[in-house]
């Protein structure tokens, strides 16, 4: 038999099946490499893996933990993905998360009234807080074409430090031992299953709502067109600037809502470092989902599983940096897999 020469051919679009297989392979290879690393350092990777699986899915507590963890990841991922629809990189979901948490805490701490009313006000404050935090980058981008990558990123540090300041300073809990957090908030998002609160269905519902609006509304059509080619949108007469502003504000609002749900549903008080980098992880979630709002639900779940595994592995003596390395490796391989799924190997008879 004669061997033909192999040739690499780039296809104009990737076949969905192949793209999916490439992603699955990327995750498998990353786990394999991690397993080898763990084995070299003298631990049994299969035993560790088994422990992670059983701790995550073996009990309702494990699943509850995952569900709570997935809420902020879906929402910050959604915030970034919405921005991508119109060609914006919102690197500031972290800051908007803090701003939303801050604004909702202010309501929860200082506004008197019945629980339900305070809670509704907290929802509003969380969303508006996120919008306010992205307002200046939005206007700078829309009217002066200032790159939003830098402006949104820099405001993260401001928001993080602001929350540290109020939670250890003026809003500090003076009643008891916790002096690096505020007192408990007067209202909370109720739970419906163990520790899982209503933020879970809200996050998934919001992702579905955004996806539907993009696919089945005139607004969505216009936003997608602006994101894909602003000059074509201008040529058709679509108000590019108006859409840019609304979509960026929506993105900030969703990230703010993530912060609000985190303090009102999970932590119940405001403290520094409350975000656990959810804003930055949201960027990874959105990239893994290729900017698709529905995809964010799944990549958010994957990210939650990885983070949760990290927490479990720490109890087994592995450091967080190992877990971060595995996360990074998965993303890296996914990016390669995405690119490779555009190629096909063909054989030419020599």
């Amino acid at each position, binding site marked *: 038999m004669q061997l033909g020469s192999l040739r690499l051919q780039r296809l*104009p*679009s990737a076949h969905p099946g192949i793209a999916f297989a490439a992603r699955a392979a990327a995750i498998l290879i990353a786990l394999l490499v991690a397993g080898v690393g763990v084995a070299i350092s003298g631990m049994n990777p299969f035993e560790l893996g088994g422990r992670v699986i059983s701790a995550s899915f073996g009990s309702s507590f494990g699943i509850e933990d995952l569900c709570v963890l997935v809420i902020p990841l879906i929402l910050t991922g959604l915030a970034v993905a919405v921005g991508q629809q119109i060609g914006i990189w919102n690197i500031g979901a972290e800051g908007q998360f803090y701003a939303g948490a801050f604004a909702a805490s202010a309501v929860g701490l200082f506004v008197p009234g019945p629980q339900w009313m305070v809670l509704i006000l907290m929802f509003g404050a969380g969303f508006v807080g996120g919008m306010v935090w992205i307002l200046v980058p939005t206007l700078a981008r829309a009217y002066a074409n200032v790159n939003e990558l830098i402006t949104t990123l820099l405001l993260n540090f401001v928001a993080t430090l602001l929350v540290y300041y109020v939670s250890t300073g003026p809003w500090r809990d003076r009643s008891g031992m916790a002096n690096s957090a505020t007192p408990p908030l007067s209202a909370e998002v109720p739970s419906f299953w163990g520790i899982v609160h209503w933020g879970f269905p809200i996050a998934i519902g919001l992702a579905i709502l955004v996806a539907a609006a993009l*696919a*089945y*509304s*005139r*607004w*969505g*059509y216009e936003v*997608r*067109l602006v994101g*894909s*080619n602003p*000059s*074509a*949108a*201008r*040529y*058709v*007469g*679509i*108000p590019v600037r108006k859409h840019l502003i609304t979509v960026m504000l929506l993105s900030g609002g969703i990230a703010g809502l993530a912060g609000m749900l985190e303090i009102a549903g999970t932590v119940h008080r405001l403290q520094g470092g409350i975000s656990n980098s959810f804003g930055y992880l949201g960027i990874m979630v959105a990239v893994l989902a290729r900017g698709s709002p529905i995809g964010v639900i799944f990549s958010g779940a994957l990210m939650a599983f990885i983070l949760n595994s990290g927490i479990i592995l720490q109890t087994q003596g592995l450091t967080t940096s190992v877990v971060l390395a595995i996360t990074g490796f998965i993303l890296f391989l996914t990016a390669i897999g995405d690119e490779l799924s555009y190629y096909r190997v063909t054989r030419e008879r020599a």
Partner: protein
Amino acid sequence: MKETENRFVPPAGAAPIIQLQGVAKYFPGVVANEDVDLEVMPGEIHALLGENGAGKSTLMNILTGIYQADAGEIIIDGYQRTFATPLQAIGAGIGMVHQHFKLVQAFTVAENIHLGWSDTPRRASAAVLEGRTAELAEKFNLQVRPGAVVSDLSTGEQQRVEILRVLARQARLLILDEPTAVLTPAEARELFLALREFVSGGNAVIFISHKLDEVMEISDRISILRGGRKIATKQTAECDPHMLANLMVGREIVLADMRTRAPGAAPVSREPVLVLDKVSVVDGGGGRLLDEVSLELRAGEILGIAGVAGNGQRELSQVLTGVRRASSGQVVVGGETLNGANAADFAALGIGHIPEDRLNSGLAPAMSITVNAVMREYARPPVSSGGGYNPRAAQLLAVDIARAADVAIPDFGMPVRNLSGGNQQRLVARREMRIADKVLVAAYPSRGLDVGAINTMLRYIVELRDAGAGVVLISEELEELLNLSDRIAVFYEGRIMGIVQNDNPDIEEIGLLMGGRKKKKAAA
């Protein structure tokens, strides 16, 4: 000031600075240059004249080492030379200043002058570079500010930096591509003085232009290219603009008259369907891209827009379709004055637009064929009702449009960039024709297409005219304009130089108008 009212005589016994013999360059399916002989003598300014696509740029790219000739020889100082790279051409003393400057905007003048130059000292402070630049500027008598950042300079100053950059590398032959296109008249005069001084030292200039007056003013000899071949080289003193226009445009235009109406076609209306009244467009720097343009378009007629590209055609098509607002003047459609309207309003009134750059402004290349096909009708039923968008109805409409355009599409979800250029253009044309009840503005509809696709496009346009729409056809193909248009308006530097009835057209007159000259009898 001009010393060359009489014949240009090269210094006695001087050899040509550069000599081309039988140079040819072929691209797939196109003869860009063939059998070109050219001789440039020391001390002369040699103009190169020709329409768009006549082969001027290709020839100069061969001379500067960007392309390699497929046949023929380049002879410098008696030796045959080949340039594999632009650096080798610069080494041989050939430098070019392109129409679009190749300067690093964020660098200073001195840094740009010294960039990629073997004479640049290895360890140089800003002060040293600026000192060297100041010396060079003085030596070549070109005023530049060595410490200024390029992005802060006017276009005229940037051009001086480009020229200085070339001269600093000991160029003996300076090639300038449409150098006055970006200059004010005062800056152009300064440039001419500098060029005269440069050639008086035994150097030479090749001056590419389509402006007849300035070619007459600055050059010693003129070579005319047409269709990739050199038609003639003349002493400027023996030329007049009429003769040059004739040579440039040529007479062997194939007329395939498409102006006769099919029986039952809509007649040309008496009332204009679209009127421009003293419309001007001013750019950020105060330059007039359109200068008090007034014209009337009637239903059922094709108005051709002739002119060398870059003389206001882009802005004209944008103003006619609402993509850009006029700085002053009025656009009136069907009796209604449209000030402050946007492109969507224009489209709703029945104005279609085949844009100049279809892939970048008429389509979203990465989006599906369906999304692209419904771009004009997504906001009305059946695709939209209320605020909703119905993907299924959108696809049905896309299928309709593709069928009318005669484009076979396997998958309407695939990105539109996967289609061939001809299919994209047909799709855009059909999409626009559906909404163009009143007017179609077609900018360079046949650009980049093969002969078959061009014929289809032109047939579409005639079809629309017969259906009673007014068509504005912008083209750089004079042949196309003569075959289709009822009238031809010639643009030059944002103005209408003249409007010619296309019943017994005077091609020479059109050529003169394109070069910025009015025919004498027209003035009388």
